[in-house]
C-alpha cells in the first residue's frame, strides 16, 4: 500500500525526473516527509518564484519537463509568475502545490488560496485532487498535457490529507483526449502546394520561432535552408534554432530586430513561418503585415493559425514532422533569381551592420561581444528582461539549439538568475552566462544563496547602467525625455553583495578593464558576479514603435547621429 505522497514520488521517478525545485510549508510537509526518504533530488530554492523559473530554466536547457513544488496559499501564489512565463513560452512545467485538507477547502482556512482558479488562464490545465483513486489518471494526464503537442505548464493541487491517505491505487487507465474529435489532417493536400510555392518564390525567407527548438528540429531546418538556399531569420524565442554563424542566418526580426533581417522580412515574396505565433513584437501592425507576400504558417497548435496574421497556407503540424516531410518531397532548385535576393540581402547587411565601434563609456554591446569572444558561441546564454536582453539577442552568436534562454512571451524581469540556476543544474559541466540588468537582478537575487550552496557555474554578468534601461529608452523616445521612476541609485554595491554570499566578484568601469574582468569571470570556477558599469544612454536600435512596419524602424542610419525612421529619407 502506498500513500498519495509516495505515489507521486514514484510517478516522478518513473518519468525519470532528476530533481524538483521547491520550498516547504505546512500543507506540503507530509509530502516532504516522504520526499526526504526517496532518491528524488530536491533543490531548496529561496523563493517559490525562483523555483518555478529554475524548473523552466532546467526545461529550456534540457528539453525535459521541469518540476516545482510549493505549499498552499502564499507558496502557490508565488509560483504564478513562473507558471505564466512557461505558458507564454510553451515550456513543459509540472507544478505541484499543497492545499488545505479537503474538508477545509472553501472556508477561507489558514493559507488557503484557490490556486487552480488563479492559474486557469496561464496553464494548459490544472487539477484539484479530490480523491486518491483519481491520482494515477491525473498524474498521467498532467504529464501528457504538459509535454504533448505544444508544451506548457500544468498544476496539480493536492490537499494535505491526500498526501497521507493510503490505498491500493490501481494504475492509470489513461483517459486523456480519447473523446476529442480529431480534425482532418491537411498535410497531404497542402504539401505539394507548399513545395511548389517555395520553389517558385524569388525572394523567399524562413522565419523560425521557438517551436523549432521545442520540436528538436534544428538539424532539419539547417538542411532545408541549405538545400533551398533560403535565408533564415528568427524570432526572439527562435534564436537558438539556427546557428548564428551560418551564412544563411540573418538574425532576429521584430521590434529590435537587426536591420537586414527586418528589411528581408518586409521585402520577401514568400515567408515560411515555423513554430512561431507571429506575435505583435514580430509583426508590428498585424493587419498590414506582408500584404503582398505568400505566407505559409506551420504550427503544432491550430489556435495559432490565422490568429494574428492571415496566411495563404496553414498547416497544423509539428515543425520536425513538417521539415521531414518537405525534405522528403525534395527536389528544390537553387535558381538564379534567388542569387539576386542573396545579393540584395548582402548589400543590406553591409550598409546597415550592427555597430561594433564604441567610444566613451563602456557600451553594453561591448561587454556582450567580449563575452562571446572569450566564451565562444557554444556557451549556454541566459538573459533577464530589458535592454540587455535585446542586445544579447542581437549580438551574441548562438550556435547550438537550447543554448539561448530568455523570457520571451511574458518578459518577466527576475527570470534570469533562477533560470540560469536551473540550466546549470540541468547541464552539469557547462558554464552558464547570465546577462542581467541591475534592475531585474534585484528581483530574484536571493537565489545567489542556492547557487553558492551548490557551487553552480553561473556567471552573473550585470550590465549595470543605474537605470531601468528599457524604461529609460521608452521615456527618451516615446515620452520625449520625460524620465519617471526609471533611475536607479547605485545600490546595492554588487561586489559587497557578492562577498555576503561568498561569491567572487569583479567590477569594470573602463574599456581597459573590460577584457581582464571578463577573463576573471570565465576563468573562475563556480559562480562569479561581474559588475560592468555601462552607458545608460545607449539605446537598443533599430526600434520599431508598436504597430509600426519593419521599414519604419528607428535607427541612426548612414552615420547620422540622430534617430530617424528608415523609410523617411
Amino acid at each position, binding site marked *: 500500500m502506498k500513500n498519495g505522497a509516495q505515489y507521486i514520488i514514484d510517478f516522478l521517478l518513473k518519468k525519470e525526473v532528476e530533481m524538483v525545485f521547491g520550498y516547504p510549508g505546512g500543507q506540503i510537509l507530509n509530502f516532504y516527509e516522504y520526499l526526504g526518504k526517496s532518491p528524488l533530488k530536491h533543490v531548496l530554492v529561496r523563493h517559490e518564484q525562483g523555483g518555478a523559473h529554475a524548473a523552466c530554466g532546467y526545461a529550456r536547457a534540457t528539453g525535459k519537463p521541469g518540476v516545482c513544488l510549493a505549499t498552499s496559499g502564499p507558496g502557490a501564489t508565488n509560483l504564478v509568475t513562473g507558471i505564466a512565463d512557461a505558458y507564454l513560452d510553451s515550456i513543459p512545467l509540472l507544478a505541484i502545490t499543497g492545499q488545505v485538507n479537503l474538508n477545509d477547502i472553501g472556508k477561507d482556512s489558514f493559507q488557503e488560496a484557490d490556486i487552480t482558479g488563479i492559474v*486557469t488562464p496561464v496553464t494548459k490545465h490544472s487539477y*484539484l485532487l479530490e480523491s486518491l483513486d483519481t491520482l494515477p489518471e491525473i498524474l498521467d494526464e498532467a504529464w501528457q498535457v504538459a509535454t504533448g503537442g505544444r508544451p506548457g505548464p500544468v498544476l496539480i493541487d493536492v490537499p494535505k490529507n491526500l498526501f497521507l491517505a493510503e490505498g491500493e491505487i490501481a494504475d492509470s487507465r489513461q483517459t*486523456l*483526449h480519447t*473523446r476529442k*474529435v480529431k480534425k482532418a489532417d491537411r498535410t497531404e493536400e497542402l504539401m505539394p502546394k507548399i513545395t511548389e510555392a517555395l520553389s517558385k518564390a524569388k525572394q523567399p525567407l524562413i522565419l523560425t520561432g521557438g517551436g523549432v527548438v521545442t520540436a528538436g528540429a534544428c538539424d532539419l531546418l539547417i538542411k532545408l535552408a541549405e538545400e533551398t538556399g533560403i535565408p533564415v531569420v528568427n524570432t526572439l524565442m527562435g534564436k537558438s534554432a539556427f546557428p548564428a554563424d551560418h551564412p544563411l542566418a540573418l538574425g532576429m526580426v521584430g521590434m529590435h530586430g537587426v536591420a537586414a533581417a527586418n528589411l528581408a522580412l518586409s521585402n520577401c515574396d514568400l515567408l515560411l513561418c515555423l513554430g512561431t505565433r507571429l506575435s505583435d513584437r514580430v509583426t508590428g501592425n498585424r493587419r498590414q503585415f506582408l500584404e503582398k507576400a505568400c505566407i505559409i504558417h506551420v504550427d503544432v*497548435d*491550430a489556435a495559432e493559425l490565422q*490568429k494574428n496574421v492571415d496566411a495563404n497556407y496553414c498547416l497544423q503540424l509539428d515543425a520536425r514532422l513538417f521539415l521531414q516531410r518537405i525534405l522528403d518531397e525534395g527536389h528544390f532548385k537553387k535558381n538564379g533569381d534567388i542569387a539576386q535576393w542573396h545579393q540584395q540581402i548582402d548589400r543590406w547587411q553591409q550598409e546597415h551592420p550592427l555597430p561594433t565601434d564604441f567610444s566613451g563609456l563602456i557600451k553594453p554591446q561591448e561587454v556582450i561581444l567580449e563575452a562571446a569572444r572569450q566564451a565562444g558561441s557554444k556557451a549556454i546564454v541566459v538573459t533577464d528582461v530589458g535592454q540587455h536582453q535585446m542586445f544579447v539577442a542581437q549580438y551574441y552568436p548562438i550556435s547550438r539549439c537550447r543554448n539561448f534562454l530568455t523570457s520571451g512571451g511574458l518578459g518577466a524581469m527576475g527570470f534570469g538568475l533562477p533560470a540560469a540556476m536551473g540550466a546549470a543544474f540541468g547541464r552539469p559541466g557547462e558554464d552558464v552566462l547570465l546577462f542581467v540588468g541591475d534592475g531585474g537582478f534585484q528581483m530574484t537575487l536571493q537565489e545567489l544563496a542556492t547557487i553558492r550552496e551548490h557551487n553552480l557555474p553561473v556567471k552573473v554578468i550585470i550590465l549595470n547602467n543605474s537605470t531601468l534601461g528599457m524604461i529609460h529608452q521608452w521615456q527618451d523616445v516615446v515620452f520625449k525625455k520625460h524620465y519617471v521612476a526609471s533611475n536607479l541609485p547605485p545600490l546595492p554595491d554588487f561586489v559587497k553583495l557578492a562577498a555576503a554570499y561568498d561569491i567572487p566578484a569583479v567590477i569594470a568601469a573602463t574599456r581597459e578593464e573590460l577584457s581582464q574582468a571578463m577573463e576573471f569571470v570565465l576563468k573562475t570556477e563556480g559562480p562569479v558576479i561581474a559588475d560592468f558599469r555601462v552607458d545608460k544612454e545607449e539605446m537598443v536600435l533599430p526600434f520599431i514603435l508598436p504597430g509600426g512596419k519593419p521599414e519604419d524602424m528607428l535607427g541612426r542610419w548612414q552615420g547620422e547621429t540622430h534617430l530617424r525612421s528608415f523609410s523617411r529619407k
Partner: protein
Amino acid sequence: MKHTFAVLVENSPGVLSKVAGLFSRRGFNIESLVVSETEDSSTSRMTIVVEGDNRVLEQVGKQLNKQVDVIKVNDITNEETVERQLCLIRVSADQSTRQEVLQITEVFRCRVVDIGRKSLIVEATGDEAKMQAIIRSLWPFGIMELVRTGKVAMVRGERNKGK
C-alpha cells in the same frame, strides 16, 4: 454578428468558469449560456450565444478546443437548427383585461400556469423571434416580472459523427 456555439464538455468541476472565462477575457459579453447534462451523464452540453467579430470568435472556438475538458466545439450559427427558449411572464390582468390577455396567449400557444387576482403567469416557449413577439404583445398590459432561460439548440436532420 450573433453566434451560437454548441460546446460538449467533460462534466468536471471548473469547466463552466473556464469556458466562460475564455469568452470574457477576449471582451465578449455572453448573451446567454445554458449548461446541462447530456444523455451521457459524464458530459455536459453548453449552448452559448455571443455577439462579436467572426475572426475573433473563430479564435475563441479554437482556444476552447484546446481545453483538456472540452470534447467538441461547434459554431452552429449557420446551420439549420431547432432552437428554443422558455420564458415565464407575470402580466397584470384584472377583470377588465383578463380576456384579452388570454386571447393573446392562445394565439401564441402559451400556457397560463398560475392565476392571481390581478395577474397571470404565462409560460412561453419558442425561438427568439417568438419570444420578442409575445413580450411585445403583452407589454401594454403591464409586465410585472419576466424570467427567461437561455437558448438551447440542436442541429436538424441526421447526425452521426461525434455528438
